[in-house]
């Protein structure tokens, strides 16, 4: 399927591929024992290996290997039981070794696939070319001193997964859906925290345009985009820049570009002629990385359910709408919360209460689901009281507010405040009798044909019961009484 953009000379097709750098969730770095935690003061998480002291050697961190394989499984990708670490050689002040240890010819994960859902509900598949493990570099700080640069090596050696897509996206929307979906999968797997602001997840976006049916155009690569919005902006800008350029008789140059977050524009960073010759070769300090099927199987067995599977169940088994399911599966915590809350009770009612009342309250209070004062089983308890008629929907809202405030169970609040719905027939009948006795004139009017007054009687009875009478029963019994 292709989405076309019209230019002066006709329609254009956009081709987008993405290289995503995802920081691996692990306690220590890819080849050293120092902490990989974000936010320490500069140069506090730096081992001798990370600083590339003479004679230091890398040792692979098994946890990072597991995370990469797990991610590969989550991307339905081929897991390579044999992979090789290569050195990517270049000089930079925050690259202590003078090379980055990466995987070039033999990545740990091969081809896979990600399914994205577009706003029109269509499903689009984006191929994964490969995933490989590599080290992050340190950070250069140029704004600390008028004439010197400072180097922070805390990130130096932290494990990254580079996930390379095939050039199979054709709009900014698709690209956004892809990065969101990828982020969601990584977070479900617990292999990357997906925090784009902190740089745990960032994307290089390759964009080219062509006339439909023609060969691929020359692409540009825009580096280091760290929000979905920036990715979309950069793509939009590049698409229009390239189309205009070509339509004006110019040519797109293969180059690396930078995105300016202030202007939303991209600009040249370095051209093809300045491209580094990285002189890749297998790192002689490391043996090829090998593992067996049992290793993969064990990881497979421990794999959490992924959003696609959960959504399937929500729609096909629980009867939720695709929209509601999407809201609930966006974050793994939400889906787990929902599964717990709705287990053994009305799934749809639970879904509504969660996405309307609970999310509304959390939003208002500005807290995360994990901090919610209402726990999954408690929300379920509230749904139970609604389902068995103990409380009405209206009362339930009141109960929920109290739960959110106090953290108490719904049952406790209903009892404490005497909010239990009155479903006792005789009690309701006596209330009806009182109301009718007090409004004999209206009873006559009703019986005389003014049926509109029925709502008035219902209201009066509900008022008399302080809202606790079972509205269904009130309706039914009132009708019996009036229609005699």
């Amino acid at each position, binding site marked *: 399927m292709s989405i076309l953009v019209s230019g002066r000379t006709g329609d254009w097709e956009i081709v987008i591929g993405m290289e995503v750098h995802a920081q691996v969730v692990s306690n220590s770095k890819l080849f050293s024992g120092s902490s990989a935690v974000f936010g320490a003061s500069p140069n506090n998480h730096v081992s001798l290996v990370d600083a590339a002291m*003479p*004679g*230091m*050697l*890398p040792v692979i961190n098994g946890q990072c290997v597991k995370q990469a394989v797990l991610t590969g499984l989550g991307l339905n990708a081929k897991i390579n039981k044999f992979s090789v670490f290569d050195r990517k*050689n270049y000089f930079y002040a925050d690259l*202590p070794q003078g*090379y980055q240890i990466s995987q070039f010819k033999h990545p740990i994960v091969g081809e896979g696939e990600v399914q994205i859902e577009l706003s029109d509900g269509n499903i689009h598949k984006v191929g994964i070319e490969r995933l490989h493990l590599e080290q992050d570099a340190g950070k250069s700080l140029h704004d600390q001193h008028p004439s010197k640069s400072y180097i922070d090596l805390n990130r130096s050696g932290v494990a990254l997964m580079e996930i390379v897509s095939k050039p199979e996206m054709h709009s900014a929307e698709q690209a956004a859906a892809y990065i969101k979906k990828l982020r969601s999968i990584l977070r479900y797997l617990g292999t990357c925290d997906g925090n784009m602001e902190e740089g745990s997840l960032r994307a290089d976006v390759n964009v080219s345009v062509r006339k439909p049916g023609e060969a691929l155009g020359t692409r540009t690569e825009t580096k280091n985009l760290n929000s979905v919005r920036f990715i979309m902006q950069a793509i939009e800008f590049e698409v229009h820049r390239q189309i205009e350029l070509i339509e004006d008789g110019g040519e797109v140059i293969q180059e690396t570009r930078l995105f300016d977050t202030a202007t939303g524009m991209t600009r040249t960073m370095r051209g093809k002629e300045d491209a580094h010759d990285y*002189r890749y070769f297998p790192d002689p300090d490391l*043996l090829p990385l090998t593992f067996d099927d049992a290793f993969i199987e064990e990881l497979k067995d421990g794999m959490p359910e992924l959003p696609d599977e959960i959504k399937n169940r929500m729609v096909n088994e629980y009867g939720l709408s695709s929209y509601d399911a999407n809201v609930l599966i966006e974050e793994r915590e939400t889906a787990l919360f929902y599964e717990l809350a709705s287990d053994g009770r009305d799934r749809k009612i639970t879904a509504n209460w969660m996405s309307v009342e609970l999310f509304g309250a959390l939003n208002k209070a500005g807290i995360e689901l994990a901090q919610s004062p209402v726990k999954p089983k408690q929300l379920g308890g509230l749904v139970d009281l609604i389902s068995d008629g103990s409380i009405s929907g209206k009362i339930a809202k009141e109960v929920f507010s109290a739960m959110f405030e106090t953290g108490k169970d719904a049952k406790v609040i209903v009892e404490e405040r005497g909010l239990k719905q009155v479903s006792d027939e005789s009690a309701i009948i006596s209330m009806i009798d009182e109301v009718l006795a007090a409004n004999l004139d209206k009873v006559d009017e009703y019986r005389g044909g003014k049926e509109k007054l029925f709502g008035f009687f219902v209201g009066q009875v509900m008022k008399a019961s302080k809202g606790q009478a079972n509205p269904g029963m009130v309706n039914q019994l009132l009708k019996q009484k009036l229609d005699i």
Partner: protein
Amino acid sequence: MSDLLKMTATEARNSLLKKEISSVELLNAYQNAMEKTEALNNYVTPTLDAAKQMAVNADKAYAQGNAGPLAGLPIGVKDLFCTKDIETTACSAILKGFLPSYESTVTSNIWHSGGVMLGKLNCDEFAMGSSNETSIFGPAVNPWSKIDGIDLSSGGSSGGSASSVAAGSALMSLGTDTGGSIRQPAAFCGVVGLKPTYGRCSRWGIVAFASSLDQAGPFTRTVEDSALIFSVMAGHDPKDSTSASLGYTNFSEAVKSNIEGLRIGIPAEYNVDGMDIEISDLWKKGRAWLEQAGAKIVDINLPHTKYALPCYYIIAPAEASSNLARYDGIRYGKRIEAETLDAMYEATRADGFGEEVQRRILIGTYALSAGYYDAYYLKAQQVRRLIKEDFEKAFNDVDVILTPTTPTPAFPLGAEVSDPITMYLNDVFTVPANLAGLPGISVPAGLSNQGLPLGLQLLAPPFEEGRLFSVANAIEKQAEFLLAPARAAGDLQ
């Protein structure tokens, strides 16, 4: 005093155990010897204060009966091993003043066994050289006689390590061997030099030259001493991913093993052009000695031998070009300030690296460059595989291979340094073992017409150092080599 210098490490160890001598006495003798032989330029950083403390500790350990296997034995260390709080320069200007905060695994093993550290020994800059002439400290000098009044090269890169043991200013020493850097200087100086199997000794904390080839090994006066110190050096190190998962072995037993029935391979391809006649005579002698000792001589072929040197001079510089990228003036070592980062790199590295190191960085960078990688680096890796297979096939038929260590005896300083190709030819017999990851040992076996030591090399399958010791011991016995350099600190035998 001079009697102390005559003791081999094994003899000294026995005397220390019997309390006939003390570690402090032994150290004093070596301190004297170091002073006497200062002109040989072997020590770049003596560590006598540390040595004294270590000797005192060793004597305490002997008194308490818990002395380690090397307790009290004076040992010198090539300046390529990082030693905690002791200047470690790789004999390069770029690392001048560098004080590591850590100790290499191999030297740690030595000190934990009670070894006494005499100091850091001269070597070629970053171990790149075959004559010790690329060192910023100037060359270590061969203690054997001069020729026409010119000092002889100790060989390299571990020149100081070989020369100090030959001159009696170290009882034993540590070196590293990437293409022959232990065996060639051992042969030039008349001592025993062992290059262990790749993966046998940890590379952690040793300044890297070519990671897939580098191995640490000992210099000793006898084969028995080599087994003694090697048993301590070897062992698995989880900090080195290429280190073999093998437990402790005491190699001293292997020295005495009978070699009767062992099959000794003589590779035809090692009869190279330009080999001195006295070297080929010595080779024949070695063959005869082993036959007399009951071994069987088998003629073998290692058909890809002639490609070993070119293959080595692609792979080693390629790895070196990357390994030496970390010397950038940013975090430690020399820095020449400049306006831009690139200018700083250029100034620092142009000033900090010597000519030979720069040459190899350039060769290596070229060999790895886009468009040349396949023709050079990849091809060299393929050739390396063939060389390895040559040995695998040969070791189906033989147990040990006997070759000369070098095509010539020691040459005068300055004779080859301006001609890199001639210099590289020194490694022609030693390089194949590094490419194939095999253990090799050079044993002093005779003298040239000019009275210079000559060595024979033995090669064995991976992790068969024990077999090397057995055969080397047989050669040592029959050769009755007399370690008597003109410029030694005293009588050594």
